[in-house]
């Protein structure tokens, strides 16, 4: 066995037994480094006969390549193991609680209002806003309330003076919107209403309503029924049935209250009907050519149904233990 063969064998043995990449690096230096054993063989080339020099050179290069290949292969193995060990050493208790981010949240009524708006906007309705401190005229007179009629008794009102009151219904905005409106029109308004009611689980002096109305040629009660089915389906999910029951609101004729059949029961949602032609005409709209529907419902009621909340008072109580759940 000549020196080269022996050196390669020794080197491979040391590579095979190297236990770490650091040890392997020392092996590499010992054989392939500038002062390494194989590198040293280069110096012997001068003492060889001229005709053997090319052959020896080729063998030396082959020997170095062999050792280098072994080192690289071994390095791959060792590095993988060492990476594993390093990661293992860095492991932490992943069951400790996460750092709580500082999360804000919107009020459940806001969330419901956003959902209502989003459904209505998708159906082509434009959201409009009106004052909560409203003119008597828009809240009652413009909505076809007969003068000095018991219909007022159903809406005990907070008056500021003879002409200003807190709106008892978001329907008050219809007059403001219809005045000079370009037709066809689909509008909706969401907001706060006030009635002088004793506060209990289903009544509050302050509550929120959405009022939806459209005016176009040939709008019929059947269109209202279809629109309600679509709206209620989007709000509550699933296939809902809509039922009308005659009811009286001065601003619609025919007037109904509507219920939906949802999860095995009928739920009364609100009032609806075709906008009274007296109202359309008072805004200069030809009630022969145009008709319109309107429907309304309580925002609190929607959220109560969706979440099984049984007491309306939670919404304005702002108990953070309640708010955090939504």
């Amino acid at each position, binding site marked *: 066995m000549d020196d080269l063969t022996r050196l390669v064998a020794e080197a491979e043995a040391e590579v095979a037994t190297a236990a770490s990449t650091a040890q392997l690096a020392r092996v590499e230096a010992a054989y392939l480094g500038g002062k390494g054993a194989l590198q040293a063989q280069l110096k012997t080339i001068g003492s060889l006969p001229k005709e053997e020099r090319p052959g020896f050179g080729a063998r030396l290069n082959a020997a170095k390549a062999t050792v280098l290949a072994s080192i690289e292969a071994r390095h791959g193995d060792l590095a993988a193991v060492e990476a594993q060990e390093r990661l293992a050493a860095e492991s932490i208790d992943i069951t*400790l*609680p996460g*750092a*709580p981010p*500082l999360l*804000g*949240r*919107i*009020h459940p009524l*806001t969330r419901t209002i*956003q959902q209502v*708006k989003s459904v209505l*906007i998708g159906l*082509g*309705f*434009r*959201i*409009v*806003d009106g004052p*909560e*401190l409203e003119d008597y005229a828009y809240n009652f007179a413009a909505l076809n309330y007969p003068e*000095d*009629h*018991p*219909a007022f*008794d*159903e809406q005990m009102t*907070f008056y*500021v003076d003879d002409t200003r009151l*807190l709106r008892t219904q978001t329907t008050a905005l219809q007059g403001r919107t219809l005045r000079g409106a370009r037709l*066809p029109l689909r509008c909706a308004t969401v907001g706060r209403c006030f009635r002088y009611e004793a506060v209990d689980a289903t009544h509050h*002096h*302050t509550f929120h309503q959405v009022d939806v109305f459209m005016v*176009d040629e*040939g709008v*019929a*009660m*059947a*269109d209202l*029924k*279809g*629109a309600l089915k*679509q709206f209620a389906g989007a709000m509550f999910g699933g296939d809902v049935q809509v*039922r009308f*029951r*005659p*009811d*009286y609101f001065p601003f619609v*004729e*025919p*007037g*109904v209250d509507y219920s939906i059949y949802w999860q095995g029961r009928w739920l009364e949602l609100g009032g609806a009907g075709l906008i009274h*032609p007296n109202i359309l005409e008072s805004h200069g709209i030809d009630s022969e050519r145009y008709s319109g529907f309107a429907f309304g419902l309580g925002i609190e009621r929607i959220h109560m149904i969706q979440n099984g909340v049984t007491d309306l008072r939670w*919404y*304005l*109580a*702002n*108990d*953070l233990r309640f*708010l955090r759940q939504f």
Partner: protein
Amino acid sequence: MRLSLEWLEQHAPTGMTADEAATTLTMAGLEVEETEESDLGPVLNIKVTPNRGDCLSVVGLAREMAAAARKPFVDVAAAGTPDGGDAGSLVRVTIEAPDLCPRYAARVVRNVTIGESPEWMQRRLSAAGMRPINSVVDITNYVMLELGQPLHAFDLPLLRGSAIRVRRSKPGEAITTLDGAERPLAEGLLIIADDERPVAVAGVMGGADTEIGPKTTTILLESAHFDRKAVRRSSKALGLQTEASYRFERIVDPAGVVRSLNRACDLIAELGAGVPVEGVVDAYPGAAPVGTVTLRLARVSQILGFDLSADEVQKSLQALGFEVTECEGEALAVQTPSWRPDVVREIDLIEEIGRVVGYGRMPEKLPSGATTQGGDSDLGRQMTLAREVLVGAGLTEVVGHSLVAATPLDDDGGERVAIRTALSSELSGLRRSLLPGLADVLARAVRRGQPQVALFEVARVFHEAPGGHTETLSVGALLHGAPANDAWRSADRPAPPDFYTVAGLAQALCAAFKTGPPAMRCTSDGRFHPGRSAEIVVGDAVIGVAGELNPAVAADLDLRERAVALELSLAGLVAAGRRTMGFVEPSAFPGVTRDLAPRIAADTPYQAVRQAALDAAPATLEGMALTDVYSGPNLPAGTRSLTLSFTFRALDRTLTDDEVEAAMAAIRAALERECGATFVA
């Protein structure tokens, strides 16, 4: 109205059970709120809407019931009384206010014996919620329930001059009503008087002076039609609502006046309570108008959205007592019955048809007109933006009351909008500020032992102003205590909020609305700590206030830590906001950052330092940040050291060291000159 099923069945023989009857009435628009048991069997409690006074009677409800069930309606048969007779010579009826009383009829009953009414009548009255009193009173009440016409019995000999005068009350008049209360009468109320004094408040309640009793021998029975507004005015003026006033305020059939009177006399005779004198005194200045409405068949289908046959339309209307007098092709002339003055237009008839046919038959369609563009309102979008900023900052939204008491925290210096005749201080006016509502939530959280809160509200506030009130959207926030977030690493625990927390929220809101950075100016708002509060100025407009709550104002909140609050006008944010779109192109070249640490007198506001630096900096200054404020024993008393970090960058080239050094030198010189800054070499 409460009504026993057996009484209803007498006039609308449907053979239905109580549940079936309740459903039928409810689906016809007469909601049965509950059904109770009585010794007469089931009693229905029916909610009658204010437009349907005619249904405050057995015949009215029976007519609806029969129409809905497609069964015949059996009316009450009332024998007429021959004209003439003595009645006219026994009483004198004068209507002095024909505008408020179009008709007044009276009959006289002699040989009256006041006893008990028969048991069947008492039971029906009790089932309807009325207390049996005596035979005559019970009969008048019974006829009112049956036909809807309120009646009243006077002790005739007690009527001075045997006279009935229907007139307006005069100044100073008063009456003791049947309930024993002495009531002064405001001038101009519709009353019944004899020749000397008021004897009844028309349509509301009779007087005690002429009340019938055990000694009564002769009575005058009144059946009249009173103006609904006149009765409502009296009822409200006296604070007295009765079965009679409730009906008159809605509607009583003007054509039923004499019929009801005769029906009562028939019952009196039949039950042996007295002997009616022949003849009716009927003061009838004006004939009840007859309404005729034209109905187009095509319009019925168009409005309801499905097709109905002419026959079906006619039958529906006839079942409710409407008469179709002419049928010319597509158009019907429909005569409205006297008890339905609420039906005046074609659309009213169409509703009646829909009710009788039943909305269950109506298909579900979708509006098929032109497409319309949906979208949120400007206000809606602005509120959403404000909410996003504050939710992003970790605050929880609350929804507070618009109606509040006048408290120091509500007093923002503006004038309050007060509610007229408020029933309680909590409902006495509209809020001027969102802070009292937020403080209220905090106070309750404190009482529950969870006093760490970070709250906000976006809602309307109200101010009275000379030319009318204002109603504007406001953004309010209130923070108290470090959020209790259960973090086990101290680094994850947020610091307790202070002035700079709310100032930061104000800056974030200004950034979101693109107003440019707000300036903080000292405020004299007494709700806040005088040394730790500021009014927030954008451009030259004050748009809000921020700071620590004044301990005196917060005293009743029982706080252990300082509370900080912010209130900004949303309109102010919007008005100051930049509306034009645009963007700044990010540079592809590297930036250079240099720090400067001037020592400056502690009472020099940072804002002055910042302004001096900005004014001196070249256009290549991309940003300036304050990274530290130090004051301590290493510094001369009354001074502090600020660490300012400047970043320079150009859009078109890499800046040279010389350029940056020149800029820093300029800033440094400006700080020395403008703010008396010194620098440690």
